[in-house]
């Protein structure tokens, strides 16, 4: 044994009490393992774009929808510093490895490309439905779109809208979720949906997933 004492760190103890307590309660609230794959479009903005190598290369600036507003075709990006402006490059959906609640994953930086590709599609009408009024085909005003609900998998489909009710007499209008129907018409002014969709509304996202499924089943049966 050497004569020099190694100080406090010298003991071969199995436990170091200070190592255990550190992370407790810090951000561990987390999501349940089977959490909903649904997410709100506004929440995707500012999400970091991270490579599988663990580097954050950008953050999402805007979501680009296809012309029918049915799915995401890509993202415009900005730099990760607080005051960074728009980036010269964008991220087409084909380059997305996974769209998660905490990050947009890409394999590596090759997934980014010149913005022309994605932005050309931005200009398409109907992609941006925020603030649009929603009317049923029966002529009833359902409310105003305040957010878009996206289901992320191999594609990122718009499955519904978060609606602020039109007859908001209360001071705190509660929003609700309305499934998206294939048979809609969209203009810059309004979105017309089948009245049936209003029977499948939900108060929260977890409940909404089942409603979306039920609504789609119903529409399929109706089509037969």
């Amino acid at each position, binding site marked *: *044994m*050497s004569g*020099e*004492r*190694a*100080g*406090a*760190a*010298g*003991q*071969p*103890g*199995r436990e*170091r009490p200070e*190592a*255990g307590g*550190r*992370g*407790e309660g*810090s*951000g*561990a609230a*987390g*999501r349940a*393992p089977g*959490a909903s794959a649904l997410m709100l479009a506004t929440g995707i903005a500012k999400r*970091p774009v*991270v*490579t*599988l*190598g*663990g*580097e*954050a290369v950008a953050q999402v600036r805007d979501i680009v929808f296809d012309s029918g507003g049915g799915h995401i075709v890509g993202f415009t990006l900005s730099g990760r510093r607080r005051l960074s402006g728009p980036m010269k490059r964008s991220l087409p959906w084909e380059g997305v*490895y*996974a*769209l*998660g*609640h*905490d*990050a*947009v*994953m890409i394999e590596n930086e090759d997934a980014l490309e010149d913005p022309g590709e994605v932005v050309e599609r931005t200009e398409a009408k109907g992609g941006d439905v925020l603030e649009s009024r929603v009317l049923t085909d029966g002529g009833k005003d359902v409310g105003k779109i305040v957010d878009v609900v996206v289901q992320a998998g191999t594609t990122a489909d718009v499955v519904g809208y978060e609606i602020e009710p039109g007859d908001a007499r209360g001071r705190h209008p509660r929003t609700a979720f309305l499934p998206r129907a294939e048979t809609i018409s969209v203009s810059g002014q309004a979105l017309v949906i089948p009245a049936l969709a209003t029977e499948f509304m939900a108060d929260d996202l977890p409940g909404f997933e089942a409603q979306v499924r039920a609504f789609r089943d119903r529409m399929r049966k109706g089509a037969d």
Partner: protein
Amino acid sequence: MLFSELTGRPVMTVAEAKRAGVVDGFVVDPARATVVALRLQKTPDSKRNLLSLSRIRAIGPDAVMVPDAESLRTAEEALAEQAELAGKGLDLPDKPVLTERGEETGTVDDAHFDPETGALHALVTTEGEIPGRAMIGLGTYAVVVRAGSESHPVTP
């Protein structure tokens, strides 16, 4: 062995019985799930602060023994020697853990590794343990792990 057990342990030379530094961090190759070097502080030359695992004579309870101070490397030398990432900011502790699906699952608290081979057995995160082999990437922003690997309960 846990990272936290080895952190702070002095590094001594066998040749001169002098202190060559103190263990401060771990350089991990995520692709092989292996610790390839120890990062030291208080080294005689502050730039030569990396100690490859292969250069270690013994990891004893009171000190890490190396042949001599020449065993320490700069980041560039370590890189040339074994083509491993020895860059800054790639330390595991306190790093957020992201699954490949883009879901965050805690931050790294500690890690279990084999001091002989460097094999990284498990990451100890705030939300449980993750097998080392589930690691896909380790960058300045996050550790990326395979989806489905994140639900291992903490073993005492």
